[in-house]
């Protein structure tokens, strides 16, 4: 284990024998916390001695100051807001103030928008939520990608898609799945309503610096294995509190091999491991993705930005507080059986038996989950029949996800009803250009408009009580998709396989039939 100082605040000359970083001196200054800038020579020495992580570099660049209580005041580059941000606006109004930086604040309608054709509201309270966002953004001069805007979609799909999310930025949003944006090599933090109002009023946020964890996934995934399978395998390994207090960097050959869509899925689920944020170092895949996006720098400006972004990846000998590793070749398609994302198992497994638990409290919890889910101990996972499927959410509704599901469904019929809601209106249009919508509707599924939809069911799209849903979403919590709903999480390809079979199923035989 490296003994190098873990951050610039504690670094002391002569305590570290690691090779010098390849940074230029100007980059070193950029990475140094402002409060020690008074003594430039000292900064130069200290930083040169310190090997920094991706997270450290971006954190240092955004640290306005560090207070005596140890918390840092951070500058926020992007604040994404949605209908649920009304609590934040209410607090701003209560103080009689205005949003400080509307130019860095972006409104997107996603949580409450209907997915029905023509966006028909069946409930006036939902319409009110969407209109409230229109009113609030107008009042404060904030750009809105509203319900009928061609750029509309789920905030965690739209941010990257529009080039608002870029490497090196610090991004916040009043939504726990904000970690998604870390896939581009940004620090992205989900915050609560009080913090939303704090950012609205000051464009800053107080944070205690989290510890750094690196999860290295080496090896090569087998055909049919997606980012969702990797993410659920990680959560099953470290638990839903395994990442608490950490910023996670995902690294290794299997991560580098992921497309940007796959990386977004992976970082999206960092919160389900309890982490403050998840990140992937920016590389050529990232730069190619960002290039040409509407809000990204253009031409020579973009090339200059890339040069800066190329310096962001963790230094070779940067020290992490915790290291976890996984072999990608050992990952099978994964489904969840219980009411926590850590209740994940390979599809060829069986429902666990509470009687075999050593801890009686844990056994009782497990029995409670089985009762809620309507499952029997030792039941084969492939024997679990489903009532419906949902393909959507900020986790798995990007174009690559829809292609993966459509590849399984093409020429086949779903045995259960289901809804497909693209991650954004742009993804929806692209899917329609590729004919994917026809594949879904021919299979018997409904092709809806874009929004958060049945992931949390607050727009009216719910799984009815007692029904079982194979879902590409992020949470199998009790009642998440509606009161009494039973959710099994899995990849888009696995949801498609479940739809075709009417029960949880291994997608691989279906793919092999095609090969």
């Amino acid at each position, binding site marked *: 284990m490296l003994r190098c100082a873990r951050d610039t605040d504690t670094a002391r000359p002569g305590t570290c024998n690691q090779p010098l970083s390849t940074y230029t001196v100007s980059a070193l200054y950029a990475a140094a916390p402002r409060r020690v800038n008074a003594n430039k020579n000292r900064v130069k020495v200290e930083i040169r001695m310190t090997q920094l992580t991706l997270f450290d570099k971006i954190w240092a660049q955004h640290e306005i100051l560090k207070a005596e*209580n140890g918390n840092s005041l951070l500058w926020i580059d992007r604040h994404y807001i949605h209908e649920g941000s009304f609590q934040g606006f209410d607090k701003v109004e209560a103080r009689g103030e205005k949003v400080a930086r509307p130019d860095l604040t972006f409104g997107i309608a996603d949580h409450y928008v209907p997915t029905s054709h023509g966006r028909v509201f069946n409930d006036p309270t939902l319409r009110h939520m969407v209109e409230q966002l229109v009113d609030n953004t107008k009042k404060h001069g904030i750009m809105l990608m509203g319900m009928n805007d061609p750029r509309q979609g789920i905030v965690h799909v739209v941010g990257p898609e529009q080039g608002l999310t870029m490497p090196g930025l610090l991004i916040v949003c009043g939504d726990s799945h904000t970690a998604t944006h870390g896939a581009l090599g940004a620090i992205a933090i989900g915050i*609560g309503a009080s913090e939303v109002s704090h950012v609205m009023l000051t464009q800053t946020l107080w944070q205690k610096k989290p510890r750094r964890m690196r999860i290295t996934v080496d090896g090569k995934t087998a055909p049919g294995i997606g980012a969702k399978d990797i993410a659920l395998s990680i959560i099953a390994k470290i638990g839903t509190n395994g990442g*608490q207090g950490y910023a996670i960097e995902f690294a290794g050959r299997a991560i580098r091999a992921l497309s940007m869509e796959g990386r977004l899925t992976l970082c999206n689920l960092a919160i389900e491991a309890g982490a403050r944020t998840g990140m992937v170092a920016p590389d050529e895949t990232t730069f190619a993705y960002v290039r040409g996006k509407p809000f990204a720098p253009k031409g020579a400006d*973009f090339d200059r930005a890339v040069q*800066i972004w190329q310096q962001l990846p963790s230094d070779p000998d940067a020290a992490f507080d915790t290291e976890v590793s996984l072999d990608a070749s050992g990952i099978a398609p994964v489904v969840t059986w219980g009411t926590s994302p850590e209740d994940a198992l390979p599809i060829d497994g069986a429902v666990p038996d509470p009687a075999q638990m050593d801890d009686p*409290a844990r056994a009782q919890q497990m029995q409670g989950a089985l009762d809620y889910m309507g499952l029997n101990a030792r039941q084969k996972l492939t024997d679990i029949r489903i009532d419906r499927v949902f393909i959507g959410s900020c986790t798995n509704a990007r174009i690559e996800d829809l292609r993966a599901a459509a590849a399984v469904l093409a020429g086949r019929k779903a045995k259960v009803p289901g809804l497909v809601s693209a991650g954004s209106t742009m993804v929806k249009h692209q899917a329609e250009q590729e004919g994917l919508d026809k594949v879904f509707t021919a299979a018997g599924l409904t092709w809806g408009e874009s929004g958060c939809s049945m992931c949390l069911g607050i727009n009216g799209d719910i799984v009815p009580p007692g029904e079982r849903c194979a879902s590409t979403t992020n949470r199998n919590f009790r009642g*998440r998709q509606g009161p009494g709903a039973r959710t099994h999480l899995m990849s888009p390809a696995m949801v498609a396989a479940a739809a075709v079979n009417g029960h949880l199923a291994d997608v691989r035989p279906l793919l092999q039939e095609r090969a």
Partner: protein
Amino acid sequence: MQSFKMQPFTRLDGTAVALRRDNVDTDQVIPARFLKVARAEGLGDALFRDLRFDADGKPRPDFPLNDPARKGASVLIGRKNFGVGSSREAAVYALVDYGIRCVAATSFGDIFAGNAVNNGLVAAIVSEEDIEKLLSAVEQTGKAEVDLEEQTIKSGNYVVPFTIDPARRMRLLNGWDDLDLTKQYKSQIDAFAAKDKAERPWAVPAG
């Protein structure tokens, strides 16, 4: 518009309730369908809605909060990983509006713990061994004394220590709002913003 000022917290001697569950996520604390409700309307009735009430709205007799002896509870003892999942601050509003001022658990969701301090709710971290003692004691006595200065929770014959981030403890003890602190640094924030704009032109949204 009503303003919700933070109340300083030092000591609390109140009715306590034990919730022997791991991973009580914020979807369970307050189901998403109540997130439309403005804070001014109060969210106490929505607390643990689907755990407290059945589909017909009848109280579930086996849910601890429904025990008539625990009416008006102000301390909640949980287990592992309380408040994980969604960032919804309404989970904290629901607890506070119901009357809960302290939740003890062996660990908390990070965002929940941040939201808690912003609303004067103490999220006390207790060791695994002590939480079991505390759960049993509270089930018997129905009472708990929380001392934030001493960082202890007492119930019956047990006194267990708890941990909390020192900065959060100070804020809770004094009822400090983060914004008041931040406003003191306005000139530093403005200077940073100006310097940053010059140093990182690429970070400004184009288009």
